[in-house]
Protein backbone atom coordinates (compact mmCIF):
# COMPACT_ATOMS: atom_id res chain seq x y z
CA UNK A 1 0.00 0.00 0.00
CA UNK A 2 2.43 2.63 -1.01
CA UNK A 3 1.40 4.19 -4.29
CA UNK A 4 -1.71 6.20 -5.08
CA UNK A 5 -3.23 3.71 -7.52
CA UNK A 6 -3.07 0.99 -4.88
CA UNK A 7 -4.64 3.27 -2.26
CA UNK A 8 -7.78 4.11 -4.24
CA UNK A 9 -10.68 2.30 -2.58
CA UNK A 10 -8.64 1.36 0.51
CA UNK A 11 -10.68 1.26 3.72
CA UNK A 12 -8.11 0.59 6.42
CA UNK A 13 -8.99 -0.64 9.85
CA UNK A 14 -6.74 1.14 12.28
CA UNK A 15 -5.10 -1.21 14.70
CA UNK A 16 -2.83 -4.16 14.27
CA UNK A 17 -0.11 -3.29 11.76
CA UNK A 18 -1.97 -0.21 10.49
CA UNK A 19 -1.18 2.76 12.74
CA UNK A 20 -3.34 5.88 12.40
CA UNK A 21 -0.28 8.08 11.79
CA UNK A 22 0.65 6.01 8.75
CA UNK A 23 -2.86 6.19 7.29
CA UNK A 24 -2.88 9.96 7.82
CA UNK A 25 0.49 10.26 6.04
CA UNK A 26 -0.88 8.27 3.11
CA UNK A 27 -4.04 10.41 3.01
CA UNK A 28 -1.82 13.50 2.96
CA UNK A 29 0.17 12.14 -0.01
CA UNK A 30 -2.96 10.94 -1.81
CA UNK A 31 -4.10 13.09 -4.77
CA UNK A 32 -7.82 12.43 -4.39
CA UNK A 33 -10.66 12.95 -1.96
CA UNK A 34 -10.89 10.80 1.14
CA UNK A 35 -13.50 10.25 3.82
CA UNK A 36 -12.33 11.08 7.31
CA UNK A 37 -14.31 9.07 9.87
CA UNK A 38 -14.27 10.63 13.32
CA UNK A 39 -14.49 8.85 16.64
CA UNK A 40 -17.99 10.27 17.15
CA UNK A 41 -19.08 8.50 13.96
CA UNK A 42 -19.37 11.64 11.78
CA UNK A 43 -17.70 11.71 8.38
CA UNK A 44 -16.11 14.46 6.28
CA UNK A 45 -15.38 13.93 2.60
CA UNK A 46 -12.68 16.09 1.07
CA UNK A 47 -9.03 16.65 0.27
CA UNK A 48 -6.42 16.39 3.03
CA UNK A 49 -3.76 18.99 2.19
CA UNK A 50 -1.87 19.22 5.44
CA UNK A 51 -0.97 17.26 8.51
CA UNK A 52 1.27 18.18 11.38
CA UNK A 53 2.32 15.86 14.14
CA UNK A 54 5.26 17.96 15.30
CA UNK A 55 2.97 20.01 17.51
CA UNK A 56 1.44 19.48 20.95
CA UNK A 57 -1.95 18.59 19.43
CA UNK A 58 -1.36 16.87 16.06
CA UNK A 59 -3.95 17.76 13.41
CA UNK A 60 -4.90 17.36 9.76
CA UNK A 61 -6.35 20.08 7.55
CA UNK A 62 -8.72 19.53 4.65
CA UNK A 63 -11.06 21.22 2.22
CA UNK A 64 -14.40 19.45 1.99
CA UNK A 65 -15.93 18.18 -1.25
CA UNK A 66 -17.42 21.64 -1.95
CA UNK A 67 -14.06 23.32 -1.38
CA UNK A 68 -15.08 24.78 2.00
CA UNK A 69 -12.40 25.03 4.64
CA UNK A 70 -9.77 24.70 5.80
CA UNK A 71 -11.25 22.28 8.32
CA UNK A 72 -8.90 21.16 11.10
CA UNK A 73 -9.35 17.76 12.74
CA UNK A 74 -7.23 16.49 15.62
CA UNK A 75 -5.50 13.13 15.21
CA UNK A 76 -7.16 12.07 18.45
CA UNK A 77 -10.61 12.58 16.89
CA UNK A 78 -9.96 10.40 13.83
CA UNK A 79 -11.08 6.77 13.81
CA UNK A 80 -9.97 6.01 10.25
CA UNK A 81 -9.66 7.44 6.76
CA UNK A 82 -11.19 5.78 3.71
CA UNK A 83 -9.65 6.43 0.29
CA UNK A 84 -12.98 6.99 -1.44
CA UNK A 85 -12.13 9.48 -4.21
CA UNK A 86 -10.40 8.92 -7.54
CA UNK A 87 -6.61 9.24 -7.42
CA UNK A 88 -5.96 12.13 -9.83
CA UNK A 89 -2.25 11.24 -10.11
CA UNK A 90 -2.74 7.60 -11.07
CA UNK A 91 -1.27 6.69 -14.43
CA UNK A 92 -0.49 10.27 -15.39
CA UNK A 93 3.23 10.46 -14.71
CA UNK A 94 5.53 11.77 -17.43
CA UNK A 95 7.24 8.39 -17.49
CA UNK A 96 3.90 6.65 -18.04
CA UNK A 97 3.06 9.06 -20.85
CA UNK A 98 6.42 8.50 -22.57
CA UNK A 99 6.05 4.73 -22.16
CA UNK A 100 2.58 4.84 -23.76
CA UNK A 101 3.91 6.99 -26.61
CA UNK A 102 6.90 4.71 -27.10
CA UNK A 103 4.63 1.66 -27.09
CA UNK A 104 2.48 3.26 -29.80
CA UNK A 105 5.61 4.00 -31.87
CA UNK A 106 6.94 0.48 -31.36
CA UNK A 107 3.63 -0.91 -32.56
CA UNK A 108 4.14 1.08 -35.79
CA UNK A 109 7.90 0.40 -36.08
CA UNK A 110 8.51 -2.83 -34.18
CA UNK A 111 12.31 -2.67 -34.61
CA UNK A 112 12.68 0.41 -32.32
CA UNK A 113 13.10 -0.06 -28.57
CA UNK A 114 12.89 2.39 -25.69
CA UNK A 115 14.88 3.48 -22.64
CA UNK A 116 13.36 3.97 -19.20
CA UNK A 117 11.91 7.46 -19.00
CA UNK A 118 12.44 10.14 -16.35
CA UNK A 119 9.67 11.43 -14.15
CA UNK A 120 8.44 14.98 -14.32
CA UNK A 121 8.54 17.28 -11.32
CA UNK A 122 6.33 20.16 -10.20
Amino acid at each position, binding site marked *: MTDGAALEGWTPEIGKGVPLEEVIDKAFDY*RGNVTVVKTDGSETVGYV*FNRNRDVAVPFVQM*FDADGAGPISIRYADIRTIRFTGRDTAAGSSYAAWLRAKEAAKTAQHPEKGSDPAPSR*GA
Partner: protein
Amino acid sequence: MSVPLSQMWAIASYVIRQKLAGRERYPLVLMLEPLFRCNLACAGCGKIQYPAQILRKHLTVEQCLAAVDECDPPVVSIPGGEPLMYPEIGPLVKALVARKKYVYLCTNAILLKQKLEAGLFEPSKYFSFSVHLDGLRAEHDEAVCRDGVYVDAVEGIKEALRRGFRVTTNSTLFDGADALRMREFFDTMMDLGVEGMMISPGYSYSKAPDQEHFLRTQRAHDLFSTLLSNPKRRWKFNQSPLFLQFLMGKRDFECTPWGNPTYNVFGWQRPCYLMQEGYAASFKELLETTRWENYGRSSGNEKCRDCMVHCGYEPSAVHHTFASWRGFRDTVQATVTGRF
Protein backbone atom coordinates in the same frame (compact mmCIF):
# COMPACT_ATOMS: atom_id res chain seq x y z
CA MET B 1 23.32 38.54 -18.61
CA SER B 2 20.06 40.23 -19.52
CA VAL B 3 18.60 41.36 -16.22
CA PRO B 4 18.20 45.17 -16.41
CA LEU B 5 20.59 47.18 -14.26
CA SER B 6 17.80 48.63 -12.11
CA GLN B 7 16.62 45.11 -11.25
CA MET B 8 20.17 43.94 -10.54
CA TRP B 9 20.68 46.89 -8.27
CA ALA B 10 17.37 46.29 -6.45
CA ILE B 11 18.34 42.68 -5.77
CA ALA B 12 21.95 43.48 -4.85
CA SER B 13 20.96 46.19 -2.38
CA TYR B 14 18.26 43.93 -0.90
CA VAL B 15 20.73 41.07 -0.35
CA ILE B 16 23.29 43.42 1.17
CA ARG B 17 20.62 44.80 3.53
CA GLN B 18 19.74 41.26 4.64
CA LYS B 19 23.39 40.51 5.28
CA LEU B 20 23.94 43.70 7.23
CA ALA B 21 20.86 42.85 9.30
CA GLY B 22 22.45 39.47 10.00
CA ARG B 23 19.53 37.49 8.53
CA GLU B 24 20.52 33.92 7.92
CA ARG B 25 17.42 33.04 5.91
CA TYR B 26 15.70 35.51 3.66
CA PRO B 27 13.46 35.27 0.58
CA LEU B 28 14.59 36.41 -2.85
CA VAL B 29 11.73 35.24 -5.06
CA LEU B 30 8.23 34.49 -3.78
CA MET B 31 6.55 31.79 -5.83
CA LEU B 32 2.95 32.97 -5.66
CA GLU B 33 0.50 30.39 -7.01
CA PRO B 34 -2.98 31.95 -7.09
CA LEU B 35 -4.53 28.78 -8.53
CA PHE B 36 -3.68 25.25 -9.68
CA ARG B 37 -6.09 25.23 -12.63
CA CYS B 38 -4.48 25.01 -16.06
CA ASN B 39 -5.54 24.88 -19.70
CA LEU B 40 -2.93 22.21 -20.38
CA ALA B 41 -2.54 18.79 -18.82
CA CYS B 42 1.16 18.03 -19.19
CA ALA B 43 1.86 14.45 -18.18
CA GLY B 44 3.25 14.20 -14.69
CA CYS B 45 2.54 17.81 -13.71
CA GLY B 46 1.84 17.61 -9.99
CA LYS B 47 0.33 21.09 -9.93
CA ILE B 48 -2.89 19.96 -11.61
CA GLN B 49 -3.33 16.58 -9.91
CA TYR B 50 -6.06 17.56 -7.50
CA PRO B 51 -9.78 16.87 -7.12
CA ALA B 52 -12.14 19.29 -8.88
CA GLN B 53 -13.00 21.37 -5.81
CA ILE B 54 -9.31 22.20 -5.31
CA LEU B 55 -8.78 23.07 -8.96
CA ARG B 56 -11.77 25.45 -8.75
CA LYS B 57 -10.23 27.33 -5.81
CA HIS B 58 -8.08 30.40 -6.10
CA LEU B 59 -6.55 32.95 -3.77
CA THR B 60 -8.08 36.42 -3.49
CA VAL B 61 -5.94 39.41 -4.44
CA GLU B 62 -6.01 40.40 -0.76
CA GLN B 63 -4.59 37.01 0.26
CA CYS B 64 -1.87 37.32 -2.40
CA LEU B 65 -0.90 40.81 -1.28
CA ALA B 66 -0.92 39.87 2.41
CA ALA B 67 1.52 37.05 1.58
CA VAL B 68 3.75 39.40 -0.43
CA ASP B 69 3.69 42.02 2.30
CA GLU B 70 4.60 39.53 5.00
CA CYS B 71 7.39 37.88 3.00
CA ASP B 72 8.52 41.12 1.32
CA PRO B 73 10.89 39.74 -1.35
CA PRO B 74 12.28 41.89 -4.18
CA VAL B 75 10.90 39.50 -6.84
CA VAL B 76 7.52 37.80 -7.15
CA SER B 77 7.08 34.96 -9.60
CA ILE B 78 3.50 33.96 -10.44
CA PRO B 79 3.37 30.37 -11.65
CA GLY B 80 0.41 28.05 -11.29
CA GLY B 81 -1.53 26.37 -12.80
CA GLU B 82 -1.96 28.91 -15.53
CA PRO B 83 -2.02 32.41 -14.03
CA LEU B 84 -3.72 33.88 -17.11
CA MET B 85 -6.79 31.84 -16.06
CA TYR B 86 -6.83 33.62 -12.70
CA PRO B 87 -9.76 36.07 -12.92
CA GLU B 88 -7.91 38.75 -10.92
CA ILE B 89 -4.55 38.51 -12.65
CA GLY B 90 -4.69 42.09 -14.04
CA PRO B 91 -5.39 43.75 -10.66
CA LEU B 92 -2.87 41.47 -8.91
CA VAL B 93 -0.03 42.40 -11.27
CA LYS B 94 -0.95 46.08 -11.04
CA ALA B 95 -0.86 45.98 -7.23
CA LEU B 96 2.50 44.19 -7.20
CA VAL B 97 4.03 46.65 -9.66
CA ALA B 98 2.72 49.50 -7.51
CA ARG B 99 4.69 47.92 -4.64
CA LYS B 100 7.79 48.01 -6.88
CA LYS B 101 8.12 44.23 -6.90
CA TYR B 102 9.77 42.69 -9.95
CA VAL B 103 7.04 40.41 -11.24
CA TYR B 104 7.50 37.37 -13.48
CA LEU B 105 4.22 35.99 -14.75
CA CYS B 106 4.99 32.38 -15.74
CA THR B 107 2.62 31.32 -18.47
CA ASN B 108 2.20 28.69 -21.14
CA ALA B 109 1.09 31.69 -23.26
CA ILE B 110 -1.90 29.98 -24.86
CA LEU B 111 -4.08 32.88 -23.66
CA LEU B 112 -1.41 35.56 -23.86
CA LYS B 113 -2.43 37.23 -27.10
CA GLN B 114 -6.09 37.28 -26.06
CA LYS B 115 -5.35 38.81 -22.65
CA LEU B 116 -3.04 41.43 -24.15
CA GLU B 117 -5.71 42.40 -26.67
CA ALA B 118 -8.17 42.71 -23.77
CA GLY B 119 -5.82 45.32 -22.25
CA LEU B 120 -5.27 43.43 -19.02
CA PHE B 121 -1.66 44.54 -18.53
CA GLU B 122 0.53 47.58 -18.99
CA PRO B 123 4.24 47.42 -19.83
CA SER B 124 6.53 48.23 -16.91
CA LYS B 125 10.17 47.70 -16.04
CA TYR B 126 8.84 45.77 -13.04
CA PHE B 127 6.80 43.32 -15.09
CA SER B 128 7.88 40.43 -17.36
CA PHE B 129 6.11 37.56 -18.96
CA SER B 130 8.08 34.35 -18.44
CA VAL B 131 6.88 32.01 -21.16
CA HIS B 132 7.18 28.29 -20.58
CA LEU B 133 8.91 26.76 -23.62
CA ASP B 134 10.78 23.48 -23.26
CA GLY B 135 12.40 23.66 -26.68
CA LEU B 136 11.58 24.07 -30.33
CA ARG B 137 8.21 23.12 -31.76
CA ALA B 138 8.54 19.32 -31.73
CA GLU B 139 10.16 19.14 -28.29
CA HIS B 140 7.84 21.66 -26.66
CA ASP B 141 4.62 20.21 -28.03
CA GLU B 142 5.78 16.80 -26.90
CA ALA B 143 6.67 18.11 -23.42
CA VAL B 144 3.22 19.67 -22.96
CA CYS B 145 1.42 16.75 -24.62
CA ARG B 146 -0.44 18.88 -27.13
CA ASP B 147 0.30 19.92 -30.71
CA GLY B 148 0.15 23.58 -31.62
CA VAL B 149 1.10 25.02 -28.22
CA TYR B 150 4.54 26.17 -29.39
CA VAL B 151 3.01 28.15 -32.26
CA ASP B 152 0.48 29.81 -29.92
CA ALA B 153 3.22 30.65 -27.42
CA VAL B 154 5.42 32.22 -30.09
CA GLU B 155 2.44 34.29 -31.31
CA GLY B 156 1.90 35.45 -27.74
CA ILE B 157 5.57 36.36 -27.33
CA LYS B 158 5.55 38.40 -30.55
CA GLU B 159 2.43 40.26 -29.51
CA ALA B 160 3.83 41.03 -26.04
CA LEU B 161 7.11 42.28 -27.51
CA ARG B 162 5.25 44.37 -30.09
CA ARG B 163 3.36 46.03 -27.24
CA GLY B 164 6.56 46.85 -25.35
CA PHE B 165 6.45 44.20 -22.61
CA ARG B 166 9.48 42.50 -21.14
CA VAL B 167 9.43 38.84 -22.19
CA THR B 168 11.64 36.01 -20.97
CA THR B 169 11.37 32.25 -21.41
CA ASN B 170 11.68 29.42 -18.92
CA SER B 171 12.66 25.93 -19.98
CA THR B 172 12.87 22.70 -18.05
CA LEU B 173 15.37 20.19 -19.41
CA PHE B 174 14.92 16.51 -18.65
CA ASP B 175 17.41 13.70 -18.85
CA GLY B 176 17.88 12.88 -22.55
CA ALA B 177 17.30 16.43 -23.84
CA ASP B 178 19.10 17.14 -27.11
CA ALA B 179 21.74 19.81 -26.42
CA LEU B 180 22.14 20.74 -30.09
CA ARG B 181 18.41 21.30 -30.51
CA MET B 182 18.42 23.39 -27.34
CA ARG B 183 21.21 25.54 -28.76
CA GLU B 184 19.03 26.07 -31.84
CA PHE B 185 16.20 26.96 -29.47
CA PHE B 186 18.38 29.62 -27.80
CA ASP B 187 19.12 31.13 -31.24
CA THR B 188 15.43 31.14 -32.12
CA MET B 189 14.44 32.87 -28.88
CA MET B 190 17.11 35.53 -29.37
CA ASP B 191 15.88 36.04 -32.96
CA LEU B 192 12.38 36.56 -31.60
CA GLY B 193 13.75 39.31 -29.35
CA VAL B 194 13.15 37.92 -25.87
CA GLU B 195 15.04 39.69 -23.11
CA GLY B 196 16.55 36.55 -21.65
CA MET B 197 16.10 32.85 -21.02
CA MET B 198 15.92 30.77 -17.87
CA ILE B 199 16.83 27.10 -17.83
CA SER B 200 16.60 24.51 -15.13
CA PRO B 201 16.88 20.75 -14.96
CA GLY B 202 13.67 18.82 -14.31
CA TYR B 203 13.17 17.39 -10.87
CA SER B 204 13.15 13.66 -10.73
CA TYR B 205 12.86 11.47 -7.72
CA SER B 206 12.95 7.75 -7.64
CA LYS B 207 14.49 5.31 -5.23
CA ALA B 208 17.72 4.17 -6.85
CA PRO B 209 21.15 2.87 -5.87
CA ASP B 210 23.98 5.36 -5.19
CA GLN B 211 25.64 4.67 -8.51
CA GLU B 212 22.48 5.56 -10.43
CA HIS B 213 22.16 8.81 -8.46
CA PHE B 214 25.74 9.68 -9.30
CA LEU B 215 25.19 8.93 -12.99
CA ARG B 216 22.04 11.05 -13.12
CA THR B 217 23.87 14.03 -11.68
CA GLN B 218 26.77 13.41 -14.05
CA ARG B 219 24.42 13.28 -17.05
CA ALA B 220 22.83 16.58 -15.99
CA HIS B 221 26.29 18.22 -15.71
CA ASP B 222 27.25 16.83 -19.12
CA LEU B 223 24.06 18.14 -20.70
CA PHE B 224 24.48 21.65 -19.31
CA SER B 225 28.20 21.68 -20.13
CA THR B 226 27.48 20.79 -23.74
CA LEU B 227 24.82 23.48 -23.82
CA LEU B 228 26.77 26.27 -22.17
CA SER B 229 30.51 25.67 -22.41
CA ASN B 230 30.75 27.54 -25.68
CA PRO B 231 27.88 30.03 -25.43
CA LYS B 232 27.12 32.45 -28.21
CA ARG B 233 27.60 36.11 -27.28
CA ARG B 234 24.02 36.86 -28.30
CA TRP B 235 22.48 34.39 -25.86
CA LYS B 236 21.11 36.15 -22.81
CA PHE B 237 20.18 34.32 -19.64
CA ASN B 238 17.89 35.88 -17.10
CA GLN B 239 19.48 34.12 -14.17
CA SER B 240 22.61 33.97 -12.06
CA PRO B 241 25.72 32.92 -14.06
CA LEU B 242 26.96 31.11 -10.96
CA PHE B 243 23.81 28.98 -11.02
CA LEU B 244 24.56 28.09 -14.64
CA GLN B 245 28.11 27.10 -13.58
CA PHE B 246 26.54 24.96 -10.87
CA LEU B 247 24.44 23.18 -13.49
CA MET B 248 27.61 22.57 -15.51
CA GLY B 249 29.25 20.97 -12.48
CA LYS B 250 31.80 23.75 -12.08
CA ARG B 251 30.56 24.80 -8.64
CA ASP B 252 28.81 23.21 -5.76
CA PHE B 253 26.10 24.85 -3.71
CA GLU B 254 23.76 23.68 -1.00
CA CYS B 255 20.04 24.14 -1.39
CA THR B 256 18.50 27.23 0.21
CA PRO B 257 14.78 26.63 -0.33
CA TRP B 258 13.71 29.55 1.88
CA GLY B 259 15.16 31.79 -0.86
CA ASN B 260 12.21 30.83 -3.13
CA PRO B 261 9.28 30.24 -0.77
CA THR B 262 5.94 29.11 -2.21
CA TYR B 263 2.49 30.38 -1.23
CA ASN B 264 -0.74 28.92 -2.61
CA VAL B 265 -4.32 28.01 -1.67
CA PHE B 266 -2.99 25.62 0.97
CA GLY B 267 -0.69 28.17 2.65
CA TRP B 268 3.13 28.35 2.81
CA GLN B 269 4.53 25.16 1.33
CA ARG B 270 7.26 23.19 3.13
CA PRO B 271 10.06 22.96 2.20
CA CYS B 272 10.10 24.17 -1.40
CA TYR B 273 8.24 24.70 -4.65
CA LEU B 274 8.66 21.07 -5.69
CA MET B 275 8.19 19.09 -2.55
CA GLN B 276 5.05 19.17 -0.43
CA GLU B 277 5.75 18.04 3.10
CA GLY B 278 3.12 20.24 4.71
CA TYR B 279 1.99 23.83 5.02
CA ALA B 280 2.51 26.70 7.43
CA ALA B 281 -0.07 29.41 8.11
CA SER B 282 2.44 32.28 7.82
CA PHE B 283 5.85 32.95 6.32
CA LYS B 284 7.20 33.44 9.84
CA GLU B 285 5.90 30.02 10.84
CA LEU B 286 7.40 28.51 7.69
CA LEU B 287 10.84 29.95 8.48
CA GLU B 288 10.75 29.11 12.16
CA THR B 289 9.20 25.66 12.19
CA THR B 290 10.46 23.95 9.03
CA ARG B 291 13.26 21.50 9.75
CA TRP B 292 15.53 22.91 7.07
CA GLU B 293 18.36 20.57 8.05
CA ASN B 294 16.29 17.71 6.56
CA TYR B 295 16.52 19.14 3.05
CA GLY B 296 19.16 19.75 0.42
CA ARG B 297 21.64 17.33 -1.09
CA SER B 298 23.89 17.09 1.95
CA SER B 299 20.95 16.28 4.24
CA GLY B 300 20.84 12.72 2.97
CA ASN B 301 17.15 13.14 2.13
CA GLU B 302 16.76 10.89 -0.89
CA LYS B 303 14.13 13.18 -2.42
CA CYS B 304 16.81 15.88 -2.57
CA ARG B 305 19.72 13.77 -3.79
CA ASP B 306 19.42 14.41 -7.53
CA CYS B 307 17.88 17.84 -7.26
CA MET B 308 19.54 20.79 -8.98
CA VAL B 309 16.47 22.89 -9.67
CA HIS B 310 16.56 26.67 -9.76
CA CYS B 311 14.10 27.16 -6.88
CA GLY B 312 16.54 25.49 -4.49
CA TYR B 313 19.92 26.46 -5.89
CA GLU B 314 19.56 29.78 -7.68
CA PRO B 315 19.07 31.68 -4.40
CA SER B 316 22.22 29.93 -3.15
CA ALA B 317 24.10 31.23 -6.20
CA VAL B 318 22.83 34.77 -5.63
CA HIS B 319 23.72 34.53 -1.95
CA HIS B 320 27.23 33.36 -2.92
CA THR B 321 27.66 36.38 -5.20
CA PHE B 322 27.36 38.69 -2.23
CA ALA B 323 28.98 36.45 0.37
CA SER B 324 32.56 37.15 -0.75
CA TRP B 325 34.58 39.34 -3.09
CA ARG B 326 35.42 36.20 -5.03
CA GLY B 327 31.76 35.35 -5.61
CA PHE B 328 31.12 38.92 -6.68
CA ARG B 329 34.15 38.97 -8.98
CA ASP B 330 33.16 35.65 -10.60
CA THR B 331 29.62 36.87 -11.20
CA VAL B 332 30.81 40.14 -12.76
CA GLN B 333 33.34 38.27 -14.89
CA ALA B 334 30.76 35.80 -16.23
CA THR B 335 28.26 38.63 -16.79
CA VAL B 336 30.71 40.80 -18.71
CA THR B 337 32.34 38.04 -20.79
CA GLY B 338 29.15 36.01 -21.33
CA ARG B 339 31.17 32.87 -20.59
CA PHE B 340 30.40 30.38 -17.88
